[in-house]
């Protein structure tokens, strides 16, 4: 049972989500579903980042009355990944947005959202 820590649960769940996302992105034929799959992949990825920086018994790196101002490094989880994950989420949203825009345009050109209908360039 010693492996059943919050960090490990987070990591495993994160990687599972990533795999599910990848699987979806590679097998779904509908472009919107592919995009959704990629957001699942992103979510898993972000979860992995957060889980990696989690240290048992510590709190989020925000200074308030409960934390005081001394010995902060022993009270906080690693703040860097927490910050990184924000950036990562933002980028994920950005990419999803762009992908959705492309999906819209693709639908307008061919009236289809099946990825197999967009193989004009090949070989």
């Amino acid at each position, binding site marked *: 049972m010693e492996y059943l820590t919050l960090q490990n649960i987070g990591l495993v769940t994160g990687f599972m989500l990533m795999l599910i996302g990848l699987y979806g992105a590679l097998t779904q034929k509908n472009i919107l579903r592919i995009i959704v799959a990629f957001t699942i992949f992103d979510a898993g*990825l972000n979860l992995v980042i957060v889980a990696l920086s989690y240290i048992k018994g510590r709190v989020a790196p925000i200074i308030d009355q409960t934390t005081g101002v001394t010995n902060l490094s022993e009270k906080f989880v690693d703040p860097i*990944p927490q910050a*990184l994950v924000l950036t990562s989420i933002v980028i994920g949203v950005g*990419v999803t947005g762009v992908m959705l825009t*492309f999906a819209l345009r*693709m639908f307008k050109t061919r009236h289809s959202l099946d990825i197999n209908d*967009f*193989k004009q*360039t090949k*070989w």
Partner: protein
Amino acid sequence: MVSPVHIVSIGLITAFLLGLGKKSQQQMLVFVLMIATAAMTMVSGSWLIGLMTGSLKPTDVFTAGFKPPFAINLRMTMDEAVLTTMVNVFGFLTVIYLFDVLKKAGKHLLSIIVVFLIGLNVVVMTRDLFNLFVFLEITSIATAGLVIIIQDSKSISAGFKFLMASSVISGILLIGIIFAYSYVGNLNIDFMTNLSMVKGGAVAVFLVMTAIILESKQFPANGWALDMYESAHPAIGSALSAVSAPAILFVVYKLMPMVPENWHPVIGLLGLITFAFSNFLATRQENIRRMLGYSSVAQGGLMLTVVAMSVYFGQSFWFIILGFLLTNFFAKAGLFWLNGIVNSDDQNKWGILRKRPVLFFLFGVFVVAMAGLPPFPTFFAKWEMIMQLAQGNGWGWIVLILLGSIFEIAFLFKWFGRVFHAVKDQPAEPVIPWFKEFPVMLFGAGILATSYYFIKYQQFDNLFVLIPLLIVAAFVVIDFLPAFIKNILLIAALTFYGYIIYPEIKGNIMQLVFMSVFLVGGILTLIPGFATKGTRAGFYPFAAMTIFGLIMLVNPGDNLTFFMGWEQMALGSYILILRGKKAERPAQQYMLFSAGGAYLMLAAFGMLPHFAGDTFFGNLSGLIPGAGVVFVLFALGFMLKTAAIGLHIWLPGAYSEAEDDATPLVSGVLINAGVLGLFWIVTSFGPQQLFGYDIFQLMGWIGAITAIGGNMLAIYEEDMKRLIAYSSVGAMGYIIFALSMDSKLGLLIALYYMVLHFIYKTMLFMSAAGVIYRTKTRNMYEMGGLIKSMPWSFIVVLIGIITLAGMPPLAGFAGKWMFYNAVVMKGWYLQGTMVFFSGIVAFLYLYKLIASVFLGQLKDNHRRVKEAPFVYLLPQFIFVIAIMVLSIFPQVLLEPLATIIPDRVPGEAILWDGRLAMTSFGYWNAFAVMTTVIVMFATIFLWLTYHSRKAQKVKQFNIVFAAERPFRPETTHVSYNMFAGYKKALGWLMTPLATQFWTGISDWSTAIADKVRSWYTGNGQTYAMHLLLYAFVLYLLISGGKIL
């Protein structure tokens, strides 16, 4: 000094400003963007200049008030200065180039361009791993936006595929970054060099590196990139190839210190596989943009190899990478931009470039630079790379590079040749706005300037390398002048060059002989050019390049100069051949075989230092043990030029389809380059073994078979030029045979025959040119009876064929006499008999040549044909005089030639006693033979004249025709299907085995390429799958199946 961070800040401010603009102000906004990119260029450019001159020191820019690793830092050293300047100059020119598009597009597109540039600048400068990730993502999003400037279904779906691929890649990258962080506790690249030592850290390095390698579009996980190249606006394809790819490769370079050393070769090989395969697949592309895409990917692969092996290349690294990087930057961008100007992916439409000489010239420059031919930087970079790899015995690597290079040449020159000949059916004068032309011209100037510095850097700015190149360049500049002025100038330049170079070489008879052949041959073959009217655009620069290339071969001093001369000669003559009306395919074949030969030689040059150090290959002392492979590679390379049997199929087409008055130069003169090379390897290597076989023995057989084969092929030719061309194959077989005897007499025969073949072949081709000039046909069965109207040409051909046939009293007999002696001394009776037999075969086609053209019935349509122009006849008669002198006094040539042959060569030499030549088998006196023949001839002639004094003169139609009038009169011509009987008997010998073999190779490679490229299904999901598979395979390769 302006801090490099302002490159970013200028960009950001501009992006915001653009956001504030209104739709009606679009044109002004484009100017704002132009100014911003110019300002960004100035910041990075000033750093570049400052760092180059030493007035600035490499620097780090810290952010957020902390030092790394606690905050992000941007670095500006020479590397970053070069790359950011490239990015920003390119950005500036892209804005100019896209002026018309941007004026109409919304302001968002302008912002996207700025963001794209910011992204690349930071990717180059940052030292922080996460920051790198962020800006790679920003660049990716901006790229996706740029891809859909053309909003059609193709580009939109390509953009989506790209987004899918980049999502997968960034996922891998981010996981890697986070693992890296969790192992070392910071994100700064400079603090991570030990990452792979930490337990588990290697996995992090692997993930980060894999992501970046995938991002650099390596084969075969790059379908998404190819689709993008194919569908995006050419200006964007240009950006992806010229700046995006280098920026990513620079990231690889930054990350290399943290990669364990035993991974370097793996990554390097991946790059070379990309190089070889992408070029291979490009050969099957009809669509220009996709072809350029393949080519860009291939170049990226090659650069990845260099970057991954930077430690291995050591001192040479910068030289090699800059060579590839700058060429790819200027040339690939230029080609994409030209694609935008032509506005078509169909090669035939590119003919409109022919209407713009400057653009067409630059197109040629870009193609040649990409192909790695001199004098462009890739040529030197490739040479250095091969030499370095050879030093470490990296033969497999060299094979991949050379394979990739030959495929590259195949598709580049197929394209070039098509465009060269696609001038017909083009709209009158294309309208090309200045802002489209300007960037192309600037980059054209860029590649030329870079080449100049590469030549200067290697201290080739001397009489033998730089001066000839400048002369070639001068002829490019004065190309608008009338042909006769340029002809005078080139002849004058060659004469003057001969005058100043004479003191340098007069002590060396070997050099003197070959220099005379190339220089005098060059000058004499130019003389018929005076009959050409108009400007003859594009002829003279390449005639100059060919002749000077040949001259470089004679006095190279080192291997690189020789190889450079060789490639220049090949390039120049390729263009001369391509100029012929139907020469597109023959010229392509010529180029491919030339390149094949050159690359075999290049491999040989790489191996040579293992045996002989830095010595020039022609100056070895002889008897170098165990260098059989080197010898064979060299020999194959040179025998491709001399068209030994099996390797000869390019020759008849190339010689016969070249312009008629250019043929003497590309045949009679140029073929001696191969002889020069063969002579050098035979004398300087000495006898060699390959798998226990005596190579000279083998070469002797090749020579004998070539002699027979070439002559057999000649006798059935109906085409005058092809007949003479095949005769060259035969003559070269004879020379190869003579060389392979490796005896004093054998080598003397080879040299003597080289000079003789040069004289009579040049003469015959010129004479043929004169006849064709007048009769407008090359088919001999359409000629006949021209002796009356072209008596001087007849005399030249007569002298030529008597010499060729080796009959007394002319100079050819000397060769035959020595040949008997040499064969008997060597004891090669069987091969020797074959060569003699080939001489008899030669009689057949020589008879055909003179009988069907000059004798027999004059054709009705040739009744008014005049003698060939004086300028055609003049050089021919100079050659005739030379033959006459040699016939009477062969010792004039033979004695000096004998001194060239090194002492180590075994065998008996000729002893001269006045005019008497002696060997242990007998003697021969040319003067006496000549006198005897003249006396006999004169006697018979006088007797006949006396005897037939009452005979009646008969005109052509004063005869009685019998039987019916033939349906097609030409089929009754004596030379039509002449020697059909022999064909029946010996035709089986003529099965075009060589042609079948090479066609088979071509068909097979086509089929394989089609199979391989069907891997790129066009489906975004398949491409994403490729990425994962690639990562998986790479993991197996690196870890060997174990956990890292």
